[in-house]
């Protein structure tokens, strides 16, 4: 079945007439994703290579049955775009946009969460279920179908590990890019629960990085309720405290959020942690091979 990006996905792309929006909407459709609509205020009635454009998400829901939204709009409009999709009744929202103010995301998070709406991102590459559907900007070329669920706070690092797995002949059920911001809609724990419930996922790779304590919290959940094998990799052992390492969320605050602490927490719960992407991929390959 895979998760998030599935054969049931009916995608509306918010910001479809923008340069990036058009590019990725068409790329996603070319991959096989069912892109049913786009939204750009004031552009209703137009189309983007056959994809109908609406003024508002609610129109895409009512007229095209959209059930998933991909948000590719500038940061100052992104929080509102997510809220619009949420209010329009879209159950699953993927936000690519980088640079959304953290307070905006606090508001979004506490609006959607009690209402049972799922958000992936922001500042994430999206979700790809190889051979099924691709939502967002993940380069599908790098991945192949298989039993490994891959979840990550970093885009290129995911591609790196996915590429190494593919080179070893291994593939993925779904690749979930969680996003590099301090407040994201889908945490490692949420993704773990999705993978645990997914029939096509047999193994899980977790790619973390410095900042926050989501990896530590995930370690608890893995010990508690995840029966599928998990292999991890953490980036940022050499990162100095107090500096934002590219991602807004990748920052060690005081003594909290270090890579060493995350590795320790995971290993304490029996999760094997690779020291570099290559080693992490190799550990997973060995695990799959030993099955």
């Amino acid at each position, binding site marked *: 079945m895979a998760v998030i990006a599935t054969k049931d996905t009916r995608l509306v792309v918010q910001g479809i007439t923008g340069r990036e929006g058009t590019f990725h909407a068409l*790329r996603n459709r070319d991959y096989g994703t069912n892109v049913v609509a786009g939204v750009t205020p004031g552009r209703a009635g137009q189309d983007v290579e056959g994809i109908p454009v609406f003024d508002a998400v609610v129109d895409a829901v009512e007229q095209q049955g959209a059930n998933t939204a991909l948000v590719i709009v500038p*940061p*100052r409009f992104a929080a509102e775009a997510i809220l619009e999709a949420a209010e329009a009744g879209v159950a699953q929202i993927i936000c690519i946009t980088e*640079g*959304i*103010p*953290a*307070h*905006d995301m*606090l*508001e979004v*998070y*506490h*609006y959607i969460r*009690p209402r049972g709406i799922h958000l992936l991102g922001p500042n994430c590459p999206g979700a790809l279920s190889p051979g099924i559907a691709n939502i967002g*900007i*993940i*380069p599908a*070329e*790098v991945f192949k179908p298989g039993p490994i669920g891959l979840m*990550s*706070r*970093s*885009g*290129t*690092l*995911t*591609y*790196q590990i996915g*590429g190494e797995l593919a080179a070893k002949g291994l593939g993925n059920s779904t690749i979930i890019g969680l996003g590099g911001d*301090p*407040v994201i809609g889908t945490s490692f724990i949420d993704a773990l629960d999705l993978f645990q419930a997914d029939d096509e996922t047999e193994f899980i790779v977790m*790619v973390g*990085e*410095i*900042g*926050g*304590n*989501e990896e530590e*919290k995930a370690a608890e959940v893995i010990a508690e309720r995840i029966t599928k094998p998990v292999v991890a990799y953490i*980036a*940022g*052992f*050499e*990162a*100095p405290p107090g*500096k*934002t*390492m*590219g*991602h*807004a*969320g*990748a920052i060690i605050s*005081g003594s909290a959020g270090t*890579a060493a602490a995350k590795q320790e927490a995971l290993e304490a719960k029996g999760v094997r942690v690779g*020291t*570099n*992407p*290559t080693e992490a991929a190799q550990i997973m390959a060995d695990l799959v091979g030993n099955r």
Partner: protein
Amino acid sequence: MDLYEHQGKELFAKAGIAVAEGRIAFTVAEARAAAEELGGTVVVKSQVLVGGRGKAGGVKVVKDADAAEAAAEAILGLDIKGHITRRLLIERGVAIAKEYYVSITFDRSAKMPLLMLTTMGGMDVEDVAENHPDMLARLHVDPALGFRGFHGVQLMAAAGIPVDERKAVGAMLAQLYGVFEAEDAMLVEVNPLVFLDDGTLLAADAKVTIDDNALYRHPDVEAMRDLAAMDPQEQAARESHLAYVKLDGDVGILGNGAGLVMSTVDVIAQAGGRPANFLDVGGGASAEKITTALEIVLSNDKVNSVLFNIFGGITRCDEVAKGLLGALEATEIRAPIVVRLDGTNAEQGRALLTEAARPEITVEKTMLEAAATAVRLAKEAS
């Protein structure tokens, strides 16, 4: 973006929060003039973006302008944990009766603002948390509600604020939360929050950090940025919208994607090298962009070799190779560059570079091989 105390207090004053009257001074003469203008006892305070200035001699209470001049002389140029004092805040002295501590942080774990309040003001809050945890009241505020009167009551009751002080402290908490929200702050800390002898409640210090992603709606805060205090490479990267962090080694690092670059920094260290920086060139592969990134990395004199680590995704490796070759035409390269191309069209990209046969470039296939080579080249050059 971290603000100086006097900048944080500007935001406080704008929100109606009481602070002592003060003047900013960049020179001894300005400090003296400020002391004269304020009259009587003043406090001369180093303005640096780091804690612990008190212990380092960065704060002096003085009785008159002569003494203020002497204090300014001592403090200007003072090195506080690597931060050189370049500006002073001269404040009117106040009669402090009581010192509290209050802060509002952006708690990512709970995804809520976290308020902390203790009557043990003036102390290091980490000390209070460790040695007197019962004295440190903590309270999360649901952003869907915002700060309400009952939050104040809860927090003050837990911190043991006397009932007769709660109206004043509660109002101050609401104002500080207002600043936290209105200014897109990641941190608002007042230590100490003081009651004066006359019963006035006043923010005697201010530590404020603003979300960089929200600066577009706070041009007044953006204008407060102290460019002079920034590292020249970091400043150049900032102007080019590149994510750059200086480290203290000799292997320059650039790559695409924050996670991959962080990982590259780690791998260099694992290979026995010392990373000189973190630089994420992001997506795209124009010669212009790669040129700028290489120039920033190489303008750090310590750099002896460079590792250019690319995992091609939507941007294909052959495009990156072309961009890199264009960059080499546009700028002079003073250190060897190890290039690793992987992912989409990696073979074509590597072929392009091999054909070009530039002497400054070594091409490697994997990240680990590339790291080993870059470390070796840096050691040879040093």
